[in-house]
């Protein structure tokens, strides 16, 4: 009797333990995946920050213009992969990078402003 109770208890503990092992990892992975989906670039003082942004595939990058002059976010590739409208102060532009690669871009109004997104 005791042995079966112990076994039952052990099994119950084991099962609980098993569920404890499986449930949180599912949430952690989901949360981690959510974090990886978004990244930010700030535009200020005629520069993109960070100048090189490295993100996993599937990330949506959002640029925010904090400068007091308008800028654009324009892909340097030919054909252009993305081009924002003109962003005045506090305006934003987002683009989702689905494939791995290096994506250089610049401001089409002030072409000396260059940066890149590396997608892994």
């Amino acid at each position, binding site marked *: 009797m005791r042995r079966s109770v112990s076994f039952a208890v052990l099994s119950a503990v084991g099962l609980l333990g098993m569920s404890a092992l499986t449930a949180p990892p599912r949430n952690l992975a989901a949360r981690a995946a959510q974090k990886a989906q978004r990244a930010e670039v700030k535009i200020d003082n005629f*520069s993109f920050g960070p100048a090189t942004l490295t993100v996993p595939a599937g990330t949506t990058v959002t640029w925010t213009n904090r400068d*007091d002059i*308008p800028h654009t976010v324009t892909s340097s590739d030919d054909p252009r992969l993305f081009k924002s409208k*003109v962003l005045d102060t506090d305006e934003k532009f987002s683009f989702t990078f689905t494939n791995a690669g290096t994506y250089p871009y610049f401001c089409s*109004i002030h*072409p*000396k402003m*260059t940066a890149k997104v590396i997608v892994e």
Partner: protein
Amino acid sequence: MSLKTMSQAAHSGDQLAYDHNHDGVDRRGFLKCMAWAGTGAFCVIRGGVLRSYSMSRLAEMDPKERAKEMAGELSFAQISDSHMGFNKAANPDVAATLKAAVDKVNGLAVAPEFLLHTGDISHLSKPEEFDTVEQILKEAKPKDIFYVPGEHDVLNDNGQQFLERYGKGSKGAGWYSFDKKGVHFIGLVNVVNLKAGGLGTLGQEQLEWLENDVKPLQPSTPLVVFAHIPLWSVYPEWGWGTDDSAQALRYLRKFGSVTVLNGHIHQTMQKIEGNITFHTAASTAFPQPAPGKADSPGPMKVPAEQLKSVLGITDVNFVRGKQALGLVDSTLE
């Protein structure tokens, strides 16, 4: 030093002192004169002699005497970088300062025959911004205004709206030329198809057009070339230059007098290279820092009471046969 003293100093040193190029042009004297220009001095080179007058002395003169003293064959004014639509701290009211620039133009002792606007008319290429500039400039006495676009005028539509408003008779992205009293004016566009990491660009089509445009002209024809971004390398780190301007300038080498008028950098700057005088105008909207004197070339805030002293117009007077143009920068005070 009072303005009166300065003009006296000018007269004492106004004989042709340095003629190293043996062409009758006292370039050092001209540069000396240009240095006074920011205070509203008027310089004319006539008969190889540099004369300068303070604006206040001119105002005191009898109008007939003044017209005779200042008689140039051609007078025009340059305004630039009105950025209609800009409303940040560096200048919350760019319409007011543009109006002040128009008042300045209308108050010039010798009325300019026409205006050149060297671009960044609008701030965001919005129709209402262009409309407002048109309304304000209607108050200017000179009714002919010639425009070239700045990079802020060709946003969103690669310059289509600019061409519709200002591009009649122009080629490509809006380049053109015209003649006034024997002086040949060339408006160039160096703000479209900008490449990543690059400076201003003229492009092959425009360069070919330029070569053909000046080919039939006599070397004695005075040229005035105007474009938004400087056609010389002011400060490449900030994009203050044009990638392919060297080729353009080669086509202009044969001419005895070339004046290049630009904007974009929101401060006055000049350089003389052989027969070419390069000059940039101040903005009527907001100043920008001197090259390298700030992290970036953004709008520079100054105390409100000083704003008008860092904005301005350029008055240009041309005396036939006498090589250089008289270029006078005046602030809006």
